[in-house]
């Protein structure tokens, strides 16, 4: 294969192949159990004799019912409008991170500076992450929005948790490699207006 200039006869089939492949690309995020749950909560149950279209239309105008689980909702990070300021780090034991697979932490973690405790558990195809500010730092973080990032990419959190007045919070997230990678050595930070 040489990188010589393409003649129109050579280029056209390649562009057509590119178009064929592009049409097969999945643009939308996968339909996971979590996303389907959220859609179902948003639309609500169909009435006994309700027409399919009316049901979907009704659902579109309905407010989403609160999630049934104990975890908070996911808040997307907006890089242009928000800033992420790392404040605390976790170090997981080598045993936790051994091997090629990105294992979730099995035990409760405490940040290196003792300011945060984190628990992670898997439910169906989701990960529930619980975060708690400890001791004197409770007042500092109560009611604040914090994020969790990977040390490889400290400026963009992969998850955000709104802490309550006791500086506790939880979030339910899709189980992605990106999240698992961040959970190898998580960085906790404050999310502030840019």
């Amino acid at each position: 294969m040489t990188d010589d200039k393409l003649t129109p006869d050579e280029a056209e089939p390649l562009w057509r192949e590119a178009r064929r492949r592009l049409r097969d690309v999945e643009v939308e995020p996968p339909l996971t159990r979590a996303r389907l749950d959220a859609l179902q909560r948003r639309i609500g149950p169909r009435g006994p004799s309700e027409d399919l279209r009316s049901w979907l239309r009704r659902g579109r105008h309905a407010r989403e019912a609160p999630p049934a689980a104990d975890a908070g909702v996911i808040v997307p990070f907006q890089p242009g409008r928000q800033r992420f300021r790392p404040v605390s780090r976790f170090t997981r034991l080598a045993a936790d991170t051994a091997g090629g697979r990105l294992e979730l932490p099995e035990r409760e973690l405490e940040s290196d500076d003792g300011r945060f405790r984190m628990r992670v558990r898997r439910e169906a195809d989701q990960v529930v992450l619980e975060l708690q500010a400890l001791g004197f730092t409770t007042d500092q973080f109560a009611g604040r929005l914090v994020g969790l990032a990977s040390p490889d990419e400290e400026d963009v959190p992969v998850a955000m948790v709104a802490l309550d007045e006791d500086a506790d919070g939880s979030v339910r997230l899709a189980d992605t490699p990106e999240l698992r990678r961040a959970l190898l050595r998580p960085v906790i930070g404050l999310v502030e207006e840019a």
Partner: protein
Amino acid sequence: MRLSKPVRGFQVNSILDRLAVDVLGVLELCLSEAPLDHDRLQLALLATLSRRRYVVNLLYRDFRRDGESAIQRYDLPDGTSIQIHDQAIVYLDKVLARRPKLARRLRETPGNMHLLLGLLARHSARGGGWADVEVRRDPDLGARGEDPDFLEPLARALAAQRQRLGDDYGEDSARRRREHGPIWLVRGACAAELPEEMSLFEVLEATPVPLQADFADDPELQRMLARVMDSLNERYMLLRASGLDPDEWHDRDEPSIARLRELKQLRRPAEDLLRLQIETDVDAAYRRTFDELKGTAASLGGFASFDAFATSPVGQAILRHGVLSLDEPVAGGDEDDERARHETIASEAPPVDAAVAERHDAGAWTRRLLAAHPGWFDPVMAAFFTAVIGHGRPIHGADGEAGLLDDLAFRRLVRAEPSLRDLAPGELAEELYERAEAIIRRGLAEASLSRT
């Protein structure tokens, strides 16, 4: 599930094969729990059918409506959204909910829907001999067995379905039933009669859920699901290819499948005549095409002349669609459209363009396109084109596999690009897709211009 490589025994080479894979994914989401949640099943199917891939390649395009008005978008708490397309509702309602008639060639063999139920039932996680379930016609068998695991939901659901159907089934079914007996699902000492005709939803309703976690890996089940999707889809595909709105025409007896096969041949040559300005009027283009295709035969699509065609409701609908579709650059002219509308899965040859690409190694042919037009690709699009188009890497990660948007190097490129860095992942994927589409359109236009 990823489609960039052979998946689960499917030879993924048409939009219907892909749909079968995705429907299998939906079944995994819905049949692994009991009882079956019908709302959830329908929403999952609608969300799947409304994905861009199916809107572009499978669903009928109503040119009277703009794209946005045909979509209902539901924002989700994770910042993404799911859209449901109007034509997905039509497809669910007309195609997936249809009860296919028994094929004439079948003698004592039950239909694909019946066999699908048997294959699903084999994977029931309820224990108690489901693995040996059999579905067959048998003139001597009677309903038997009071095992609660068999009665609920399977035997009771089937009884209700039989009652609903009554004797409202096709002549071929009635004849085979007389000759070879009713169709039975047999599990050990239990037997329940199946309705002569079943829809996909009726099959799922009777399935003894929950199914085992790995049920979707069964190659026999995969092949059967692909066959079911293929047979359900046939009329819809032909209507779409002919330019007849399936919402209006799917449930009618006419035009028949045979006539639709003839009528669908009109559209492409007529649109070519108009595009090449050999004809400037839609009626004239279709008249010329009709006369050429009909030749000396007595009729085409059931019409003895173009005038008979043009004054019929079918002809008027096709001509109206022909006028409207001309305003849309995506309508016609694409050999890919035709490939996507093929009528059987098994018989399809690999697309010609794929053969061209196979002669080049995966990365090399995209590199040649990039090298030929360096000014067309900024760093983000060069990376996107190479990874997604060239190597088939998915945009989004799933099932523990990282997608392009999970790639740190790619994310750095995106953050360096002001027009992209603030976009949510769904919006970013859309934007990248559209930019790639624009580049490809430009490439095709330039290649076509250079040749002429």
